[in-house]
Structure formats: C-alpha cells, structure tokens
C-alpha cells in the first residue's frame, strides 16, 4: 500500500461482495468506515503511511453482512461498485456505500497481508 508520488497507485486487492441486510427502513452493511480527504490522516490507526487519506474499515459488527462476506477490520477500500474510494471525502464515501436502490455492494479492498501472500506465492 505504499504510494510513490507521481506514479499510479498499485495494490493487490480482494473482491468482496456484501449483500445488504434490511433492518426496518434501512439497508445496513454492518461495518464502520473512517478516513477521507477531508479528515486528519494522522489519526488513522490502521494505515501504514500516515499521510494516506483513503477510506478504512474501522469496525465490523460480528455476524453482520460484512463479516459474512469476509471484510476484516483495517481494510482499505479502493473501489465500491466501480466508484473510486481513494480520493473521496468521508461523506461521499458514506453516500456511495448507502445507496438505497442498490442491494449489493462489490468492494475492492486491500490489506497488508494480501501483498505478503502474493509475494510468498511468487517466491515459490
């Protein structure tokens, strides 16, 4: 997840499909996000690079749709349904995830362990 200025951002991502759960009037996904270009990146406990203003998963409710789909705390969300999440404000990210007419969100997430896994598999 390191970022070289001037070069395109490259990352190993995992595709996660979350089916929204209907609770009363709302469709919930079962996790919490933090971060965004309008937030303070130094406070992010999950990011490796403390200038990274991306959207991170800060909490996953146990047994919720995100947990079932395989989302882990500390994941950085790169895309939601094709929309980029690396350069959005916190509110824009929330809106992209909570669209009322979508039942499924397909996320591309990245985490440190993915890179290591790829490196290990390449070395073998």
């Amino acid at each position: 997840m390191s970022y070289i200025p001037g070069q395109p951002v490259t990352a190993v991502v995992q595709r996660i499909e979350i089916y929204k759960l209907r609770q009363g009037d709302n469709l919930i996904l079962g996790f919490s996000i933090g971060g965004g270009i309008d937030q303070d990146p130094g406070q992010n406990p999950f990011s490796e690079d403390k200038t990274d203003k991306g959207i991170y998963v800060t909490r996953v409710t146990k047994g919720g749709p995100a947990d079932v789909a395989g989302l882990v705390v500390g994941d950085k969300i790169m895309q939601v349904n094709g929309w980029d999440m690396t350069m959005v404000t916190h509110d824009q990210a929330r809106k992209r995830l909570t669209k009322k007419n979508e039942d499924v969100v397909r996320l591309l997430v990245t985490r440190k362990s993915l890179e290591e896994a790829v490196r290990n598999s390449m070395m073998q």
Partner: protein
Amino acid sequence: MDTESTYSGYSHYSGRSRGSHRHGERSRERHKSRSKDSSRSEKSVTITTTPGAPLTEPPAQGGEVQDDNWGETTTAVTGTSEHSLSQEDIVQIGKDLEVPSGRNCRRYLSLGLVGTLGLLVFLTPVAFLVLPLLLWTETGQRCGTACEGLLISAIFKLLILLLAVWALFLRPRRAHLPRVNVLRTLLSLLGLLCVISYSLFYAVRVLDQEDNNYEGIVQYAVSLVDALLFIHYLGLVLLELRHLQPIFSVRVTRSTDGETRHYNLGQLSIQQAALAILEHYYQDFPVHNPALLTAAKSRAAKHLAGLKVYNVDGPGNNTSAGQSQAMMAAAARRRDSSHNELYYEEADHERRVRKRRARLVVAVEEAFTHIQRLQEEEQKKAAGGETMDPREAAQAIFPSMARTLQKYLRTTRQQHFHSMESIQQHLAFCIANNMTPKAFLESYLSPGPTLQYGRERWLASRWKLVSEEAVTRGLKDGSVFLLNNIDFSLVVTTTRIPYISLAEEFIDPKSHKFVLRLQSETSV
C-alpha cells in the same frame, strides 16, 4: 523658474474665472423661472386650526379675547406678520445677491415679538402679587408664614421661568425658513391664552369683587407660574425632544454628480428637515465642481452629433416624435466606439493625475526641508535680519512648489477654488502650526466639504425648497422634496426606519459542551 510670471499668471487666471463665474450666475438666475409652491392663504390656515389646542376656559370668552388682542400679540414668535412682508417681497429678495435689509428687519421684528410676549408672561404674576398691595394697603400685614413661603417660591419660580424662556426661545436664529413654525406658534398661543384666562379671572374676582385674602391671591399667582412652567416644559418636549429620536432615514443625492449621503432624522416638518439636511450638506458633501461635469455632456453630444434627420415628406408634416425615435434607433444601431474612448481617456487621466501628484508631493517635501523652526535660545542668538515670521517664510518657499501645485490643480480641475493668496495663507498657517508637508497638501489633493472654501462658494442664501406637500407638514415615509441651488439640486427621499422586533434567546452557560473528534467514523 521665473517667479514673477507664475505669480501674475495665477492671480490673473483666478480673478478671471471668478468674474466669469459670477457673470454666469447672474444670467442663469434671470433665465430661471420662479416656481412658487402652494397657495398664499397659509396665514389663515395655520392660525385658525387652533381647535386642536387645549383650551382651559370656555370657548366663547376665548374667542372674544382672541379677537380683541389679535393685532398686538398673537402674531406669534416666529412672526406671522413678517409673512405679509415676505410674500410680496420674496421675488425682490431672491434677486439680491447680498443679504437685504428686509431680512434684518424681519429678524428684529420677530425678536421684538418674542421679547414682548416674554415680558407679558413674566410681568403678569408679578402684577398679580403687587396690585393688592397698591390698591388696599392693609393686605400686606395679613401675610402669614405660609403666605411668605409661597411668595418666595413664586419669586424663584419666576426666575427659573425667565431663564428657561431665554434659553429656549431667545436664541439667535440660524436660518430663515419659508413658513412659520406651526408648533411654536401654537405653543405661544397656548401660553398667551393661559395668561389671559388667569388675568381675566383675577380681574373679575379680585379687582371687581374685592377679595382681600392675600394668601389666596399669592396661591393664585403661584399656580399661574406653575402653569407657565408646565407650558414651557411642553414646549421643550415638542420643539426639541421630538426631533432627537431618529424615526426617518433620508437619502440625499446631488443631481449633478450623484453624491449620496444618508442621514437619520426625527419627527420634523419638511422645512426643518430641509434645514437639518443643508447643515449636514455643508459639512459632508465634497464641494460642487462644475468643471468635472463637462466631459459627460460632450460625450452625450457626440452620440447624436453624427446623425442628421431630414424630413422628406415636406414642411407640413409634424413628425417630431417620429424623428427623435428614428434618431435614437439609429444611434443604437451604429457601431459606437465611445465606450472605448471613455476607457482609455479615464486611464490616461488617472495616470496623469498620479504623475503630477507624485511630483507635487516631492516638491513640497523638498520645500519644507528648507524651513526650520528656531527654538527660544536660538532666537535670541540669531541675527535680526535672518529670522522670518510664518508669512515671510511661506512667501520664501512658495515659488519652488508653485508651478507643480498649479499643474496638479489644473489636472484635477480645482484651480478655480484656490487663489494664490489663499494658498500662501494656508502655507503660512501650516508652517506656524508645525504641520508636515502631507498635512499641507491634504486640502489640495482631494476636494473637501464646501465650508472649507471661501465664502463665495457657499451660496447659503440661494437655496429653494421645492415640495409637492405643504412644507409645514411632517415628514412621512416616501416623501420627496428638492433643494434647489443655482447649479444643482439635492433630491431628498425619506424612508421610515424599520420597526425592529428583537427576540431574546437564553443560552445556559452550562450548555457549552465540546467533544474531541479525532477522526469521524460512520457506520454503514
């Protein structure tokens, strides 16, 4: 630099311009039509609307008394009688350039009337007290303690009344208004009625029926003085306090160059509001400079100058309206580059002014460095021939800056406001008061209020009030009137100050609570 030539050129130019200005004034004055507003029957109108005034005695007696004393004293404080003079003479008075003797006559007349009324009001209680002593000599011994106390209080109250009347009504008038001040007239009438009714009762009870109770008479006199003091208080509230609280906001615009100011006024009549506005005008508005207005007129003339309209159908066809419309349409369609000219001309002028101003500031600063103030000890030590007083010092350094100053004034079209003599006087004044070059230049760099310039610029005696409503009516929301001077006019519009409704919101000091948000987290 040839100092002699700048001297003569300057004074010659200023003298010439002043003469031509005055000549232009006279011819313009003759061509202007006299427009007088409203009828001339105002005299009877203001006086016969007294049914509104509170009458304390039966109207029959009051009417009779009014008719008897009408000629002498009820032509009131601001002089209704002087109106008979002014209505006939106003045309001639308007034509004079100096203050005519007729106006002085009016002033003295009104002062005389006020004095008479005041004396009458003052002497009546005194007469009430003194007459029984003169007529029946034994009443003096029947005055006990209470009666003497009342006498003393009567004397002091009379003194206070005298001082109060002098302070409020006997002030030198600061303006000549076209109509009588209605409130003042009514007030003086009220005072007169009070005095007359009291003296009537006195005449009947004491003199006719010979009521000898001196204590009662003293009480009667004291009650009259009290009533007069209260009428004076009423006068204070109506004439002074009502004008203080701001109710209306007036917008004053000068018709020639659009200078606008806003003022807050209280409940005044239109003529009093006009007076207040004019007093502010002399202090706030920059002086009227006709030289700056010629550019706009020449531009407008150039717009229509290139077009000529020929009447093809023959001389009998009177289509003047059609002609002007055709000219306007053609002018609109023509590809006009006058906006371009205006832009470049203004930019050019701006640059020229700034260049001249820079040269002027440098020249003046340099000139001021040649002068040095001598301290006390040095004054004694210095040789007699070298020390100069401020006037000579000004004359010594003036030539070095005269040319640049003249050029700057020419560029900003202010040269006819300042004669060479006035500049030297100002320079001497600044030198004597230890002012810096910047302070000296302040009055030349930007046009100041009209009072700053000579008396001939004031034109204070040439104002005309033009109004559709009677000028003694109060100001109302939306009233409009004009103050015409010779070259320009001030357009005044009135708006009521909005009724402000203020609501209260209470914030508990304990409700100021804050939480630290390190990073916001939203659950989705």
